[in-house]
């Protein structure tokens, strides 16, 4: 059963600057875009690497290892070498705190 977890303070999230967080075993990249805060699985679907350590621009996260690109809003794998999308998670902000549903 998915539950809401408090994972960060809203002020920690600067625009297009990914923040890597962890909920239990799940690694998540949180990113603030102009239309809100989004959460995707932080692990590239190609080889093990944290997307939160990659380059972020135009609503996309780029894997730091092999430059595979993912859409932060949908998790969609946009460029090879990744073929598989990353999971996305619902996000809500309450009282200055960011919650992710995992």
């Amino acid at each position, binding site marked *: 059963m998915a539950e809401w977890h408090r994972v960060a303070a809203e002020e920690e999230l600067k625009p297009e600057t990914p923040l890597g967080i962890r909920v239990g075993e799940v690694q998540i990249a949180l990113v603030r875009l102009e239309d809100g805060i989004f959460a995707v699985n932080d692990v590239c679907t190609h080889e093990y690497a944290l997307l939160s350590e990659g*380059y972020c621009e135009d609503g996309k996260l780029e894997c730091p*290892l*092999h430059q595979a690109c993912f859409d932060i809003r949908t998790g969609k794998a946009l460029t090879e070498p990744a073929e598989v999308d990353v999971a996305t998670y619902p996000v809500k902000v309450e009282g200055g705190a960011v919650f992710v549903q995992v």
Partner: protein
Amino acid sequence: MRRVVIIGTGQAGRRTAEALRELDPAAEILLLGAEPHPPYDRPPLSKAVLLGSNPGNALFVRAPGFYAEKRIDLRTGTRVEAIDPAVRCVLTEAAEAIAYDSLVIATGAQARRLALPGAEDPRVMTLRTLEDAEALCARLADRPRIAVVGGGLIGLEVAASARQRGCPVTVLEAADRLMARCVPPVISAMAAELHRRHEVVLHLGCALRSILPRSFGLVLDAGAVQLEADLVVVGIGGVPNIALAEAAGIAVQDGILTDGQGRTSHADIYAAGEVARFPHPFFGRRVRLEAWQVAQNQPAAVARAICGQAGDYDEIPWHWTDQFDWNLQVLGDPDPSFELIQRPSEGARLTAIALDGEGRARGAVLINNGRDATPCRRLLAGGKQLDAVLLRDPAVPLRQFL
């Protein structure tokens, strides 16, 4: 309806077929290859496959039903023996003649062999195919003493993987530094430190003279250095598979000579991927590049040419290697003659940018710092003169120079 025959089921062959299908829904596409498998990507062979963490189906990139779904007639285990440009057909090993309107040669390269006494011993291996990788992986289980000949990308990836499997590893490199063809000396020195830290024994400036097969192992004679190994892995570069093209009278020169869209000296015959030697605008000369990036994207330019569309292949060159806990990425041409600006950051990360005499970025080397790849690519493409003093300050973000 045009019929396109592609020779070679490596990454470049697959990408040519895919790009063609995108551009021409009606084309008949035949993808012929000698290998028994559907197309697979080779980068994991020297890493994940050797480490025994078999990437399984991911190695093949496309699901088994993909080719039928895209109406790509994939024929594995089909070796092409000859090309007859006069009648526009290829002849297979099974003596089948297959006609084409357009032909794409994507035969790739093979591992260069050692031309030395003793090199034909079965304990002397190269790494190119999935079979090579699986055979080597199986032999690493007994933790043999490994001698790697060649301190380039493949040699060092094999060294790192074998070391991680618990094998004693020695690397012999003829040049006085590692990866001399792709990184400047200061990066070579860091790579040497990385490998020594993981107890890889390095012999630089050390040219192998002969291998003496003995029952107890192989004795390597490199003049001042003599050593024993159970297994030798040779990683001394690739040789393009140009025999088919050459026999058909197509112009070759360490690769098949093409224009920026893969057109060869013969009408309706193209070359794709690492077998092609083509004029690259970034280098301002013809190059033949053995890299994932070229196999991935140059075929799209070939597909455009076949469909009568313009658009040369002109990406900023980029390749990577993964060794131990290092991810090393190289962009452009970080020639040792350029000034190298180092931008270290926390956690032993490094971005090094090579500036030419006019202060323009010509190359970049990133150690565990892939987030700088996109800004670096733009710096290289932009060709702006950069302020070296400002660039040397890692606190100034790269975005500021774009």
